[in-house]
Structures are given as C-alpha cells and as structure tokens.
C-alpha cells in the first residue's frame, strides 16, 4: 500500500484551509470595504456638497464665476470626488469640473430643498453617487457632487488583491515554514520508521548504527522519540544477546538432561523388563499356588471324605469291641482298646474339621446383605451352654450390615467368642464385641480378658491345627482360627491379634465396606 505521507496531508489541509480563508476573506473584505466606502463616500459627498452650498452663497451673489470655480476645483483633490457642479435654479451651469463637457445625465437631476443622494450612471464615464445639495434652499442654485463608484470598485479590488497577495505571501511563508518543520519532524520520523522496520526485520544492530541517531540529540519530541527508539534498540539488542545466551545454555542443559533421561529410561526399561519377568514368575507361582491350593483342598476334601468311611467302620468296630469285651480280656487290653476308641474319636474330629476347612472355599454361599448384630446374636445363642457354664459376660456393641456369607460369618463370631470363653483366666470371661467404620472397610474386634497370647505366637495361631496348649489343658483340634482366617480372607478382609500373655487378647478382622447398610 502506498503511504499517503504526513507532509502531503498536512500540506493539503494547509492549502485547503488557506484557499478557503482566502476566498472567504476576499469576499467578506470586498463586501465590507464596498459597504464602508459607499457609506464613507455618501457622507463625504454630502459633507462636500453642503459645505460648498453653505460657503458659496456670497461668492455666487457678489463675485465672479472664477471664484466659484476655484472653490469647487479644490474638492477634486479629495479622493473619490469625480466631479462638482454648481447650477442655477433654472439649471444653468455656474461652475463644473467636467471634461470635455457637462454630461446630459447631470443636467436632468431633479431639484429638492433637501440634500439628495442618488446613483447616477453617466454614459462614457461610469457610475457615480450624486449628492445634490441646495444653495440657500435652492434659491441660488444647487451643488452636485459626484463620488466615483469606480473608485469604490477599484478600492475594493485593490483591497482584495492586497489581501490575496498578503495571504499568498503568508501561504508561501507558511509553506516554507511547514516544509522546514516537515524536514525537522517528518524526515527524522521517516528515518526512524525505516530503521524501526529494519528493527522489525530483525537487525537492530544495523538500525542502531545508523546516522539517524543524530536526531536523538534534538531536544524536542522527535528527539524524545529517537532516544526512546534507540533505548529500545539497545534494550532489544541486549535482550537478544541474553536470549541467545540463555538459548545456548538451555540447549546444553537439554542435551545433558536428554542424556540423563536416556539413561534413566534405559534403567526403567530394564526394571520394567525385570518386573515383567518377576510378575510373570509371580503369576506363575500364584497359579502354581492356586493349583496346589486347589489340589490341597481337593486332597483335604477327598482325604477327609474318603477317610470318614474306614474311620467310621474302625470306630464302630472298636466301640463294639469295647462294649462287648470290656473286662473280658484283661486290664491291659481294656486300656489299649480305650486308646483306640479315643484315637478314632479324635481322628473323626480331625477329619470333620478338615472337611469343614475345605468346604469354606468350595461350598461358600454367595455374599448377601447380612446383619452382623443378628449373626453375632446367633453365635452367642449357639454358645449358650458354654456361656452359662463359664459365667461369662458378653457385651456386643452395635454392628453393621455387610455383604457376607451369613453362615460363615456366624462361624467366625462363634469361633472367636468360643475361644474367648475357652481360654479364660481365673476370673469369669468378659467378651466385648464392637465394630468401627474406617475408610473402605469395617474393623471388627472381639476382646477378652483371657490368658492372652505371646506376641511371637500372634501369627502362628492362625496355622492349621496349630495348638499352643496341650489337649489336656484346653480341648480342641486347632482348626478354629484357621477357619476364621480362611473365611475372612474369602470375604476380602484380614484378621490379626493384638495381645500379651495374661492381659487378654483382642482379635481384629476387617470386612470391605460395600455400603451394605
């Protein structure tokens, strides 16, 4: 796009304003001068006419026409006066100033006892303002004074031309001044613009080295602008330098970081590979474990189920033997038969427990909402005999509803409460059952005031058929807690014990909170 330069715009505005001013000024001054001069000429003509009329009375009456003529002649000297004429009442000319002759137009002017002003056109001479004044009320004659309109016109023209000439001079002067100012302002601005463009194009160095910065030494606004631009250029150069340095540094750092990252990456990849490998191994192990677990379960079930039959036969026959042959053989035989009966009964218990254990995984019912309070109450009812026998006090706090296998969970409560009743100290057992809601899970506790458990046994007590005491001290096969652990784990929770010997024990187990209540 072609730029319309500031100087040209200013010039055009300037020229327009001047032209308008000139036109308006010329017209208005022409009108004004014309009006003024007309008024001035009218009053001047009137003054002269009445003056002559007043002073010529005696001269006309007593003296000669030379004197009248001399009187009127001097008025021709006055600017604007074109002619003076003195006529007798009858119209005879007494004195006049016309050459080469008196025009007919002035002879025919009407007479009046008043001073009369009228416009008069005289063929060949032009337009005049004729002032006619009576001498001694018209008894002696009349004075005609003609004021030249041409004079007015030429004065108007002269004034107009002078005005225009003056305006033109001012215009030229203004033009010169403007050009100078433009040179002072626009040229440096153009330089600045050019160099700002260079700057924009990205070469502040070349812009800064230019001679345009001479403008910066000026004290005016252009100087300020130039200084500001120079400051900007300096700043930009500096920033660019800094930026370049920062960029370089960054590049080095990026390279370093990239190298580090690559190393870390390689390490991570290695780790991932290892983890994958170990995960695979774990998976394999888990699978193996699951398989061996299932095999074990299967084995336990089959063993316990299949062992029941021969055992039942053995115990039936041993019982028969004991019943029928007690006291018949000898004492020793009776004792031995008694050992077999006990052993078969114990074995039967073991096999039932084992069967029970294996059934937790295989015969579990699907989870349904269950009121733990009710389940706990069932367990307490089931333990009614033992409770009464031991004189125990069972305190059950409010318990939540959870999604669970109700039978199994009842078994858990029953086992834990049963243990508390079984392993009591000298004082009657006191059992507290409570539950506490924690994020994502319910934590149940069953606390007793029993004999307690040494911490080193806290884990072992959950192992299958693990017993800390002799059968004689505390009867049982040692399947109870193992069963609890298995049930809780099936429900997705865990079970542990906090205890010290002689201080009672607190069993905790968790169940996932699935929002059952």
């Amino acid at each position: 796009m072609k730029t319309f330069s500031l100087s040209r715009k200013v010039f055009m505005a300037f020229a327009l304003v001047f032209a308008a001013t000139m036109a308006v000024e010329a017209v208005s001054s022409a009108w004004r001068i014309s009006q003024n001069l007309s008024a001035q000429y009218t009053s001047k003509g009137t003054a002269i006419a009445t003056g002559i009329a007043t002073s010529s009375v005696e001269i006309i009456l007593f003296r000669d026409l030379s004197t009248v003529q001399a009187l009127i002649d001097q008025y021709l000297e006055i600017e604007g006066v074109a002619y003076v004429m003195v006529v007798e009442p009858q119209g005879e000319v007494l004195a006049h100033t016309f050459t080469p002759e008196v025009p007919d137009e002035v002879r025919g002017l009407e007479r009046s006892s008043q001073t009369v002003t009228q416009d008069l056109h005289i063929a060949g001479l032009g337009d005049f303002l004729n002032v006619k004044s009576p001498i001694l009320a018209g008894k002696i004659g009349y004075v005609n004074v003609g004021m030249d309109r041409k004079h007015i016109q030429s004065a108007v023209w002269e004034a107009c031309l002078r005005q225009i000439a003056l305006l033109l001079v001012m215009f030229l002067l203004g033009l010169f001044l403007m050009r100078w100012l433009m040179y002072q302002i626009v040229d440096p601005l153009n330089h600045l613009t050019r160099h700002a463009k260079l700057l924009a194009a990205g070469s502040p160095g070349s812009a800064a080295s230019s001679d345009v910065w001479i403008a910066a030494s000026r004290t005016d606004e252009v100087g300020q602008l130039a200084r500001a631009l120079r400051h900007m250029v300096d700043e930009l150069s500096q920033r660019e330098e800094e930026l370049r340095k920062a960029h370089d540094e960054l590049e080095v750092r990026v390279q370093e970081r990239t190298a580090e990252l690559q190393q870390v990456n390689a390490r991570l990849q290695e780790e991932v590979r290892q983890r994958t490998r170990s995960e695979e191994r774990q998976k394999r192990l888990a699978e193996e474990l699951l398989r061996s677990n299932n095999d074990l379960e299967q084995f336990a079930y089959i063993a316990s189920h299949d062992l029941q039959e021969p055992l039942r036969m053995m115990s039936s026959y041993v019982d028969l033997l004991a019943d029928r042959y007690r006291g018949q053989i000898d004492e020793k035989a009776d004792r031995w038969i008694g050992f077999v009966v006990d052993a078969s009964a114990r074995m039967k218990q073991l096999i039932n427990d084992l069967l029970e254990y294996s059934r937790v995984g295989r015969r579990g019912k699907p989870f349904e909402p269950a009121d733990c309070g009710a389940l706990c109450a069932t367990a307490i009812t089931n333990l009614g005999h033992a409770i009464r026998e031991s004189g125990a006090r069972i305190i059950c706090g409010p318990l939540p509803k959870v999604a669970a296998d109700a039978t199994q969970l009842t078994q858990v409560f029953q086992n834990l409460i049963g243990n508390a009743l079984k392993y009591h100290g000298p004082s009657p057992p006191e059992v507290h059952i409570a539950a506490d809601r924690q994020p994502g899970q319910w934590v149940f506790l069953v606390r007793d005031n029993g004999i307690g458990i040494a911490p080193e046994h806290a884990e072992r007590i959950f192992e299958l058929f693990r017993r800390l005491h002799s059968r004689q001290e505390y009867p049982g096969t040692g399947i109870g807690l193992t069963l609890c652990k298995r049930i809780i784990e099936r429900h997705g929770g865990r079970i542990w014990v906090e205890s010290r010997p002689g201080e009672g024990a607190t069993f905790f187990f968790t169940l996932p909170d699935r929002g059952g209540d």
Partner: protein
Amino acid sequence: MNRRRFLTATALGSAAGLLAASPLSGPGRSGKEIVLGMSAAFKGPSRGLGIELYRGAMAWLEQVNRAGGVHGRPVVIKAYDDGYDPLPAIANTIRLVEEDNVFLLFGYVGTPTVTRMLPLLKIYSDRSIFLYFPFTGAQPQRRPPYERFVFNLRASYQQEIAGLIDHLVPLRRRRFGVFYQIDAYGRGGWDAVRVALGQHKLSMIGEATYRRGTPFMASLRPQVDILRKAEADTVICVGAYAACAAFIRDARDAGWEVPIANISFVGSESLLSLLRQASRERSEDYTRRLLNSEVVPSYDRSDLPAIRQFREMMERYDPRPPGELMPEDYKPLPYSYVSLEGFLNARLLVAILEKMGKSPIREGLAAATESLDNFELGIDVPVSFRSDRHQGSDEVYFSTVEQGHFVPVTDWKRWAP
C-alpha cells in the same frame, strides 16, 4: 495628499529660494535690496510663462540695478516655482512673506494660483502686503474683496474676450464655441464669453473643457469633436498654451479650419513654438487661422520706446532664472509677449518705487501706486491708478500668425466667414 503636495512644494520652494536669493538677506525694506517675491510656473506644461515673465522683468531690473538701483538700492526678485498649482502657490506666498520678508509680491502667474492665494493678502493686510501685476486677467483680483490688495497692469480676460467678440460678431461670426480649462481661469473666461456674447444677444453654441496640466502630447480630439458637432464657426480658447496648441493641432488634423482665438495667457510665442515644432514634425501648417488677443503691444513695434528698450535689454542681458528655476531643456525666447509684459511690469513697479523715495515702506505702496496718473510707460498708452482703479491698462491688442511669426492684426475683414 494635499499635505504631501504642500510639503513637496515647500521643500522645492526652499531649495529654490536658497539659490535665488544668494546675495540677498534681510528684510526687503530695511536691507540694501528691495526684494520682490515671485511665485510662478517654472516647471511643468506652463513653465514658459513663469520663465519668460521673470526674464522680461529682470531685463529692466538689471538695467535699473546697473544704473545704481532705486535710490541706490538694487531691486531683486526672489522666485519660487509653483508649477501652476494653487497649493504650492499658497505655500510659496507664505514663505515669501513670513520667512523671506519680501517687500511686495510681484509677477505671479495664473488664475487658479492667484485666485487661491488672494485670501492670504487679506490675512497679511496688517503688513501691507500687495500683489503687483499678476499675469492673469481673471476677475477675482479685480473685484471686492481682494481688489484693494492687488494692482493689475494688464487688461482683464473679460476685456480681451469682449474685444475678440466685438471684432468678430460684426464680421457675421455668430456661432462661438468655447474651449476652456476647467478651473477658475477657464471658467472665468467662459463667463466672459457668455457676457460678451450677451451684449450682442448671442449665446455660445458649444463648450468643451480640459483639465489643467494637460500636456501637448495629449489628444484633445473629443473636445474638437464636441465643438465641431455643435457647428461652431469660431472657437475661443481660454487655456494654457500646451493644451490650446494640442487643441489647434487636433482640430486641424480633423480638417476643421475654423478660426481659433486664444487669449494672452497662452503666451503666444510658447503656443507658437509648440505648433511650429509640430508643423515641422508632421509637415502640416498648424499656425493658420489663429487669432490672439494680447494685453501688450507687439514687440515688433519698434516705434514704441518701451519696445525698443525691451529688445535692447533683452538682447543685452539675456536674463535667466537662477539655478533650478531654469530647466536645462528650456530654450529661452529672444522676445515674447510674456517677457514684454514682465518688462513693462518691472518698469512700472520701479517707477512706483522711485516715487517712494529713499526709504520706501510697504504702507506707502498703495498711496504711491494710486497716485500714478497718466504715467507714460512707453507704449503709447498712459497708465493711471486710483483707489477705485487698480488696473493700469485697458488696452487689448490682437495678433495673428503670418509666416511663423505673430504679427498685429491689421485687416479684420480677413476673419469674416
């Protein structure tokens, strides 16, 4: 404008005065010299009048002064140029009276100038300032209220014009047209024509005017056409010589052959000089059918003693106006009606001064002049003044051009249509 002209004129006058009055200082009455103050046209279209009038007067004064002056006192003229313009004439008069302290005013030229300076004489009446023998036949200085401050030698324009008309009307010239300068002089002349024709129950049949100062090269053909259209059979000019000569030239160029009469103010030789020059340049005789009225006899009349003295002294002294007042391009006329008038004026004035004794005072001038009775001036016409008569001569002479020279009119019948 008026003021500027006034100042210019004053400056001019003062410069001229320095040169003109070189050996003269002090008041005219108490000093050695008797100083006469003169304001006239030494420059411009009418300069010939002032210069020739001065020369004629100085011819006699030179003679008088060489013979020891008036009662031992030389008589000198202090002259300023007024260019035939009223305002400088007024300024010069004031200067002459108030600064130069002249004894009397003498040798003024022109009606508009004299008419306008007359009130000064009234103002200076307590100093008894008189104007002697102005070169104008106008009426204002011959009438109240200024006639008592002025002494005229020459006949009036009215008398000149009446003389012309009185001679021409009987020759059956009836249609008079007037060409005149539109100022006090011309209008006075116009009035004189009107009055003179009225005596014969006639009126002028046409009139045309021109502006004072019109030079010879200007065209006056419109004026010619106006009068010709009015079918004038005689034209009377009341003007200055340059314009009148131009009018004559244009009339003849237009093929208009009517007699053209001029009055004394044209300074016949000045008029003739221009016409002869034009005749030479255009191979056309512009000097035919010209009639002039004069207030002094022809300088060819050697039978008159004053004329003989005039010619002798003009020849002997060939006086020149001093310094600036004598333009380099002006060629003085050996003799002329104007210089003769100046000569006669000086003769009469010296006679008056002589009557006043060794210690003339201004206050004695009027009495001395008015006591002149039938004074023999040497032109065969006795000159008398009285308190009610301030014009010395009523004599009008007529001349015409023959073979390039003005000669007295002897045969009037020639001028019949």
